[in-house]
C-alpha cells in the first residue's frame, strides 16, 4: 500500500518509514502538515499516518481537512501521538481520526494497527463496489423503463386518416413514468385516441401503463367479437369493460391512473369521449375561433370499483383542433410565477390553433422551454394534437373541408365535377370561367376572412337549379363588402386587385352576405347556349 507519513521529527519518522518499508509498503514522506496536505491534494492516499504536533498545519488540522473534502475513496487516518489523555483522544476521534499510534513506536502495535486499517479499507472498498454495481443496475432499469415507455406505451399516431390529422410531442422526463397514448383506427371514418397517466414514476408505473394499454386492446377485441352484442363498442362501454378487468388489481396494487378516451367519427362529425380524471380536452372551434375545456366525466381508474362510466358527445367542424396533454403542460410556470393551468393553456392555444400542426407543436415546445425556468423538469411532457378534417366528402349536398391554400384544388375539382354532371351545356371555356370565379372567391376567403390564419372551414355547395348553376361558399370570419372594392387597374402597373373583377366577369351574378355567424358567397352562372 502507498502510505503518506507526515512527521517533523526526522529521527522518529525514519524509524517509522523503515518499519513500513520492511513490511513492503511504499512510503511518501512529508516533513510538516502543510506539505502533507499539498501531497494529499495531488494523490488520494488510502492510508495516512500523521504526527499530531507539526508546524504549518498540525495533524488534527490535516485530519479535519481530509474529512471536509469530497473524495471518491476513503482515507484511513492514524494519528501519531505521545498523548494518552482520554479527552485528547476523544477530540481526535471526533475530528475524523480512525486510530492512534503511541510514541515511542512499538513495532508489534504498528503491525496490529495496520492490519485493522487494511481490514477496514477492504470492507469500505467492497461496499463501494457493491454501491457502484447497484447504481449501474438501477441505471439499466431506468433505460429499460424508458424503452418500455417508448416501445410499448407511446404508439405512433396514424399520420393522417380521412377523418383526422395527428401530430404529437412527447418529451420524457429524466425519470420513467407511466404516461401512455395509442390510437385505434376503425376504417376511414372513425378514429379512437386515448391517453393515460399512471400515478407514480419508475418502472412499476410504466409496467402498469403497459398492462392497462394491453387490457384496453383486449377489451376492444373481446367487445368487437362478443357473441351477445358484437360491433364497435361505445367509449363508455369500453371503459366499463376495462374497469371490470383492471380496477380491482389497481386497487390491490395501491395505484390508479387517469385516462381520456375519445372517438372522432367523421360520418356524423361527432366527438365522443370519456375522461377519467385526465387533464381536460382542449377543443378549439374553427368556426368561432374559441377554445373550450371539455368536462371530466369520471374519477381516475382505481379509485372506486363501483364506477359507472358516462360518455359525452359534441359536434366537430372541419378544422377544429383537439388537444390531449399531460399535467407536465399545465404545471409549467408563467413568467409571473403562476402555474399555467388548464384555462391558461386553453387561452394560450386560442391564438395559435389555426397553425399547421407541426408549427403548433413547435410553439408548444417553446412554451415548455420558457416555462421550465426555475422549475425541475420532473414531469413527462406530452401533447397530442388532432386536426379534425371531417370526411371532406359531399354530405347534405355540401363539400365540407378545412381549406388552406393547398386545398383550393379540391374545391375546384368538386365544382368542376358538379358542373359537368349538371348537363347544362357548359362549354370548356364556361367551365373554366366558373372555376376561376370559385378560385378567386375561395382564395379570398382563405386569405382574408381571418387575417394571419392559414386555413378556415369552408362548406361548398354546387348544384343546378333549372337552367342556372349555383355555387355557394360558406365560411366564418370577417364580413366582406363588394362595394369596398375599387375597379382594377388594367394597364399592368398594379399586380393585384383583379380578383373581384374576375369573379364578376366569369359569372352572371355574384352576391356576398353575412348570415349571423358565417359569410355566404353565391355565384350564379347560366350556359350561354341555354
Amino acid at each position: 500500500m502507498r502510505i503518506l507519513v507526515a512527521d517533523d521529527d526526522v529521527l522518529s519518522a525514519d524509524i517509522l518509514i523503515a518499519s513500513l518499508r520492511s513490511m513492503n509498503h511504499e512510503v511518501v514522506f512529508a516533513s510538516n502538515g502543510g506539505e502533507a496536505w499539498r501531497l494529499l491534494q495531488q494523490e488520494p492516499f488510502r492510508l495516512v499516518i500523521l504526527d499530531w504536533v507539526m508546524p504549518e498545519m498540525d495533524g488534527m488540522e490535516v485530519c479535519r481537512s481530509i474529512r471536509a473534502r469530497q473524495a471518491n475513496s476513503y482515507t484511513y487516518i492514524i494519528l501519531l501521538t505521545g498523548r494518552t489523555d482520554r479527552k485528547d483522544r476523544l477530540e481526535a476521534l471526533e475530528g475524523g481520526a480512525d486510530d492512534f499510534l503511541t510514541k515511542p513506536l512499538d513495532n508489534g502495535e504498528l503491525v496490529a494497527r495496520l492490519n485493522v486499517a487494511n481490514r477496514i479499507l477492504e470492507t469500505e472498498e467492497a461496499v463501494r463496489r457493491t454501491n457502484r454495481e447497484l447504481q449501474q443496475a438501477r441505471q439499466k432499469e431506468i433505460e429499460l423503463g424508458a424503452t418500455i415507455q417508448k416501445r410499448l406505451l407511446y404508439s405512433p399516431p396514424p399520420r393522417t386518416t380521412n377523418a383526422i390529422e395527428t401530430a404529437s410531442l412527447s418529451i420524457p422526463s429524466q425519470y420513467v413514468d407511466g404516461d401512455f397514448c395509442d390510437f385505434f383506427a376503425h376504417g376511414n371514418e372513425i378514429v379512437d385516441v386515448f391517453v393515460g397517466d399512471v400515478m407514480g414514476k419508475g418502472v412499476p408505473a410504466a409496467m402498469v401503463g403497459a398492462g392497462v394499454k394491453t387490457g384496453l386492446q383486449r377489451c376492444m377485441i373481446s367487445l368487437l367479437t362478443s357473441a351477445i352484442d358484437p360491433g364497435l363498442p361505445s367509449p363508455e362501454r369500453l371503459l366499463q369493460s376495462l374497469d371490470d378487468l383492471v380496477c380491482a388489481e389497481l386497487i390491490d396494487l395501491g395505484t390508479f391512473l387517469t385516462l381520456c378516451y375519445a372517438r372522432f367519427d367523421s360520418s356524423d362529425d361527432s366527438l365522443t369521449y370519456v375522461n377519467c380524471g385526465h387533464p381536460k380536452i382542449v377543443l378549439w372551434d374553427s368556426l368561432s375561433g374559441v377554445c373550450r375545456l371539455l368536462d371530466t366525466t369520471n374519477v381516475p381508474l382505481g379509485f372506486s370499483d363501483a364506477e359507472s362510466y358516462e360518455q359525452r358527445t359534441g359536434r366537430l367542424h372541419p378544422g377544429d383542433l383537439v388537444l390531449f396533454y399531460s399535467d407536465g403542460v399545465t404545471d409549467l410556470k408563467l413568467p409571473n410565477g403562476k402555474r399555467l393551468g388548464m384555462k391558461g393553456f386553453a387561452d394560450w392555444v386560442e391564438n395559435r390553433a389555426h397553425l399547421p400542426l407541426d408549427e403548433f407543436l413547435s410553439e408548444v415546445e417553446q412554451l415548455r422551454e420558457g416555462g421550465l425556468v426555475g422549475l425541475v423538469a420532473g414531469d413527462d411532457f406530452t401533447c397530442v394534437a388532432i386536426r379534425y378534417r371531417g370526411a371532406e366528402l359531399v354530405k347534405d349536398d355540401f363539400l365540407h373541408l378545412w381549406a388552406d391554400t393547398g386545398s383550393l384544388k379540391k374545391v375546384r375539382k368538386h365544382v368542376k365535377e358538379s358542373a359537368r354532371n349538371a348537363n347544362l351545356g357548359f362549354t370548356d371555356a364556361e367551365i373554366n370561367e366558373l372555376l376561376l370565379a370559385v378560385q378567386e372567391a375561395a382564395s379570398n376567403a382563405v386569405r382574408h376572412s381571418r387575417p394571419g390564419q392559414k386555413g378556415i372551414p369552408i362548406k361548398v355547395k354546387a348544384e343546378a337549379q333549372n337552367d342556372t348553376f349555383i355555387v355557394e361558399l360558406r365560411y366564418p370570419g370577417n364580413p366582406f363588402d363588394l362595394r369596398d372594392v375599387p375597379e382594377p387597374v388594367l394597364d399592368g402597373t398594379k399586380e393585384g386587385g383583379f380578383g373581384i373583377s374576375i369573379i364578376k366577369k366569369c359569372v352572371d351574378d355574384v352576391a356576398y352576405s353575412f348570415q349571423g355567424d358565417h359569410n355566404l358567397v353565391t355565384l350564379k352562372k347560366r350556359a350561354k347556349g341555354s
Partner: protein
Amino acid sequence: MAISVEIVYSGRALVLKVQADTLETDNVAAFRAAITPLLDKSAHFVIDLSEVEFMDSTGLGSMLSCLRIVKSKGGSLRLCSLTPEVKQLFEMVMMDRVFEIFDTPDQALAK
C-alpha cells in the same frame, strides 16, 4: 406544391419554362422565389406557360411582377404557349394588351 422554372433555351434571350400545372395562390410564392434569381441572368426573356393549365389572379400578379422587374432594367419579357384556360384569363382582364403573347417559343424569339 412543387414548382420549378427551367432555362430551356439560352441565346439573345432566355426561354424559361414554368414546370407546374397550376400557378395560383398556393404556389405563387414558390414561383416568385424560383424565377426571381433567373431574371438577373439576361435582359430579354420568354416565359413558356405550356404546362400551366390553371392560373388565378395571384398567378397573374406574379407575371406582372416579372414584367415590371425586367422592364425596369430596360429588358423585355414575352409569353408563349398559353393554354386556352390561361389565355382566357389574360384576355378577360385585358392583360393580352400588356404582355406580348406568342403561340410558340420560336415565334417569340423570332420577332
